């Protein structure tokens, strides 16, 4: 009891806290005695002699033994050690570590049990000699904090949209996006390049809005058009092609919504797909707020797959169950908030806490959830609340569907700036190759252009949450029409100079080959509904088939997790699939056969056709000579297959410049 009294003395000045803390202190006391008897004679273990790593050596110890009371907003004894600066701040009793001198660091004394009155951690086994030796070496080495980037209280984008007006200058640009960007260029002393040629623009805008290559006829008629507004006209034409638009953008949504024809969970009813509903929603350009409300609080079986999540047979921890999946996915997909850390413990990389994740998960649960921290039940029930309580409350007495309905309202509330920011940021990133905020799922990060972001978000809301409106805004801008930036961006200090080249997605790659050869996919897993118009040039597009070895190699994700951005990076394994995989070879061989049957058997005509269809230009004389050398005077199935392969591998084919 002596220990208890002594320890309490330290808290006297915090009168309001005595009651709460004394429970914990009592535990300290009782454990402390026992431990002291064992370790009383022990002196400090020597520090390990090697260099220690925070990430590999120290973080596991702190996370397992200390975070429960000293991280993520919990500051027992006024002390937190989740960041280096918190650690250096010490506790209410003064410094806790002396960098460079572990022997005199309070942290070491308490974990080693040198002070019988305060032993840490107060519960469970004592730290091992090895762990203490690591901590000592770490302190002696000056507390290196490698691996985990220390984010010194980053500037956070506020919840509400900031009211912004576009700059007045340069006045010659009617599209506000351009006035924002060209003022930004002026501010950053960046040259303003001329916009791309008609040919480059046309290929870019076709692929970006509809995912298809323009046909030679479409290219010719566009190039021949002398209307100064022809670029705007083609944008309107493409956006009005609701089928092509839906067939392109559905892959973007499938990645985000984890929707696929196959995947884990389907085997025993643990998952449902939403393809029919999703296609229709995109085809009709459903307002985005209504779209999201339907996904969060479905009114139809056809749209409930997203919020139901993925269930594997067997037992799973609460953190893996559908209510928590729903919380994580609603936060990530629609709000750009990563709750994955906070689903298990208070996050140590941002401000989200366990109760935030559980509070949201609880809205999707039939029975109230008990808080579980790192697989340990906390003995208290989770709250029922939305991520930002200032947006509104959720009636804890309401049944699950009504709570979900309320989450849908709060998510899509105009007062919730993250909602509109998240989607316009995703659209910008898809078109420009780099988001206004990166990573795309950390919407609280600072944007490189917060005014433009908030203006786009506000503009999106004012235009009825119309995704096509925002796409139109962006692709009709001169900004979108800037030349592709060929150097790799620096993620730490990103400067916008223009769009980045984009690799064709797996689906675009397949469809682009089809545009070249006229051979489309077989065995679609989805039938286009009656009444949707057809296009004579276009057959079964690649999104409608199951993922195969080639589309996987080209980055079609398996959709077990939310994917906000696919891997675009060429890899050796992918190149192997392209170089000797049967799928591509057979696809091209069929294409060659079809071309031989449908275009004139003259090598020059075939070469011209493939160039025009594949990379929207005529061959240069040197290219023509080479192609003729390969194809001879009369192309054969064999050499034409090889020529198609060469074009399909060509960087001009594989990238959207």
């Amino acid at each position, binding site marked *: 009891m002596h220990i208890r009294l002594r320890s309490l003395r330290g808290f006297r000045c915090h009168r309001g806290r005595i009651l709460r803390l004394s429970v914990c202190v009592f535990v300290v006391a009782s454990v402390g005695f026992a431990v002291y008897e064992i370790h009383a004679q022990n002196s400090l273990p020597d520090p390990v002699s090697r260099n220690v790593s925070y990430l590999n050596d120290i973080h596991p110890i702190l996370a397992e033994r200390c975070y429960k009371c000293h991280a993520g907003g919990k500051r027992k004894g006024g002390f937190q050690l989740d960041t280096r600066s918190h650690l250096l701040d010490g506790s209410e009793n003064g410094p806790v570590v002396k960098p460079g001198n572990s022997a005199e660091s309070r942290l070491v004394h308490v974990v080693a049990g040198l002070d019988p009155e305060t032993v840490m951690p107060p519960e469970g086994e004592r730290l091992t000699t090895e762990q203490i030796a690591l901590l000592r070496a770490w302190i002696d080495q000056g507390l290196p904090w490698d691996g985990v980037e220390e984010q010194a209280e980053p500037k956070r984008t506020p919840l509400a949209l900031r009211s912004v007006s576009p700059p007045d200058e340069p006045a010659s640009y009617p599209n506000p996006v351009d006035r924002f960007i060209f003022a930004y260029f002026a501010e950053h002393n960046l040259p303003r390049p001329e916009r791309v040629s008609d040919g480059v623009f046309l290929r870019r805008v076709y692929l970006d809005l509809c995912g298809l290559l323009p046909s030679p006829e479409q290219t010719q008629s566009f190039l021949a058009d002398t209307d100064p507004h022809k670029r705007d006209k083609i944008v309107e034409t493409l956006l009005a092609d609701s089928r092509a638009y839906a067939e392109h953008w559905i892959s973007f949504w499938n990645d985000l919504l984890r929707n696929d024809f196959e995947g884990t969970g389907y085997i025993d009813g643990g998952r449902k797909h939403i393809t029919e509903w999703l296609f229709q929603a995109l085809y009709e350009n459903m307002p985005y707020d209504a779209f999201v409300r339907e996904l969060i609080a479905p009114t139809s079986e056809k749209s409930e797959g997203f919020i139901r999540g993925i269930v594997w047979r067997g037992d799973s921890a609460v953190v*893996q169950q559908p209510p928590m999946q729903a919380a994580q996915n609603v936060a990530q997909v629609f709000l750009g908030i990563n709750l994955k850390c906070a689903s298990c413990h208070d996050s140590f990389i941002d401000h989200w806490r366990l109760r935030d994740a559980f509070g949201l998960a609880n809205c999707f649960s039939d029975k109230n959830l008990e808080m579980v921290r790192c697989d340990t039940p906390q003995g208290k029930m989770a709250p029922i609340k939305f991520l930002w309580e200032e947006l509104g409350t959720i009636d804890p007495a309401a049944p699950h569907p009504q709570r979900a309905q309320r989450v849908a309202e709060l998510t899509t509330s105009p007062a919730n700036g993250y909602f509109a920011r998240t989607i316009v940021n995703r659209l910008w990133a898809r078109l420009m190759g780099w988001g206004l905020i990166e990573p795309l799922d950390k919407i609280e990060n600072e944007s490189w252009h917060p005014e433009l972001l908030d203006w786009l978000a506000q503009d999106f809301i004012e235009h009825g949450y119309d995704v096509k409106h925002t796409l139109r805004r962006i692709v009709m801008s001169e900004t979108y029409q800037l030349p592709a930036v060929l150097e790799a961006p620096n993620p730490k200090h990103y400067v916008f100079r223009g769009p980045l080249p984009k690799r064709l997605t797996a689906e675009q790659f397949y469809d682009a080959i089809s545009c070249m050869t006229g051979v489309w996919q077989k065995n679609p897993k989805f039938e286009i509904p009656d009444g949707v118009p057809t296009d004579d040039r276009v057959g079964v597009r690649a999104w409608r088939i199951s993922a195969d070895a080639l589309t996987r190699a080209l980055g079609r994700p*398996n959709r077990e997790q939310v994917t906000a951005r696919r891997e675009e990076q060429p890899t050796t394994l992918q190149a192997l699939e392209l170089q000797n995989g049967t799928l591509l070879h057979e696809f091209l061989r069929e294409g060659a056969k079809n071309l031989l049957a449908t275009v004139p058997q003259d090598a020059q005509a075939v070469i011209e056709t493939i160039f025009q269809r594949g990379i929207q230009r005529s061959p240069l004389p040197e290219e023509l000579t080479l192609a003729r050398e390969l194809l001879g005077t009369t192309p054969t199935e064999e050499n034409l297959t090889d020529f198609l392969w060469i074009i399909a591998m060509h960087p001009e084919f594989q990238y959207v410049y």
Partner: protein
Amino acid sequence: MQKQRKTTKVTRRDFLAAASAATLSALAARYPKKAVAAEPEEKIEPRADRLIVLWMAGGMAHTETFDPKRYTPFEVGLSPDKVLSTFPAIPTAVDNIQISEGLESIAQVMDRATLIRTYMAADLGFILHSRHQYHWHTGYVPPQTVAAPHIGAVIARTLGPLNPDVPAFIDIGQRFNVGEGEELKAFHTAGFLGSEYGPFFISDPSDAAGCVNPPAGMTPLRFESRQDFFRRLVAHSPIMQFGSDYQRESLLRSLENSYRLLTSPAKKAFDLSSEPKEIYDAYNTSRFGLGCLLARRLCEVGARFIEVTTEYEPFKHWDTHENGHTRTADLKKMVDRPIAMLVKELEERGLLDRTLIVIASEFSRDMITEGKPDKPVKDQVEVPAVMTELKHYGMHRHFTGAGSVVLFGGGVNKGFLYGKTSDERPCSTVENPIGIEDLHATLYYALGISPKTAYIVEDRPFYVTKDGQGKPRMELFA
């Protein structure tokens, strides 16, 4: 020239932007998702350079293979709870180790083995094989919020290829057009590490050469000529005249890398037809057997990680829901000789010391208990009160209370027995239990990888053993 370029519809200025040399690091920086290793400072001297996992897919009963108990022959009217093993025990090259009849070839090489009898599979409730397999192969239980990488991908990412012309992660024998195929796909992946580290699949080892040869019907000459034309055409393309482009360069580099692999001398290793007939025949018990032969050949040319599976398919192979005894006898014929040959032939070539071989399975089986004795789960198989037919005789339920893992080479003890299970039902672990965290830690440690190695995904560390807590069992090493 100017005139010609006009017809291209692509103007020089489209590609004019401040161009800089594309470097790999700049490329990596393009991808925020790319994991960054925080390499452990602690240097672990590797005992092995490569790992071969021989996967007994479907649940290999310990009491029928490496942990034989009292043998009770079949007779009509026999009560299942009387039967602990349906095969007699046989001696091995090690005095204190007996294994099960039908594994005579492996018995002869047990003096090179460390036998773990106490692998404890996790408690995941109502059994789904693929879920346990996911757990075994990644150390994490699905579903996961980030895609967990396969152990082969972790090794490929951490150590890289031994020979750049041989894929670092080779997966032999599993097809995915089977039941639970999607669940299998979910862990046969590099996950968040990125597909560069993913598996190179060889579903049929007898046609492994097909995986590295030109597409069917294409001669090597044509393949070479196609590549040559490709290079020349790209070189003459207008885009090559406009500065450096990191995207284009990385695409071309990847195609050159794969071309090099497809034309390298190492690719001969994939072609089993060049193996002497008697050796080929000796291995050729099955696709698994040929997979072992292929594994040996790939080790010789510098493979880093290879998994050879008996192949998982629900209710097939080791997944004996009935007729267990008869089927297990057949399975032993399938695996016994090839495994022993793999051990011996690697040894003869001086490779065994630096190659760690692991025989493992997602869990074991028993005739009575489904799950663990203290944590039974829903039964999936009816077991009759007395057996009336031979098909009732065998281990038909899924058992997670113990399981056998065999290690060869790679610096582990020779002729060493680890862990003890009870001699009476439930035949479960009584000493030295080892879970997947410590088993993985031991495998990683052997390869010189700290079990605390972490990769950063979405700003947080993802450890190669759960929470970095796996501890190698040092007593297993020589």
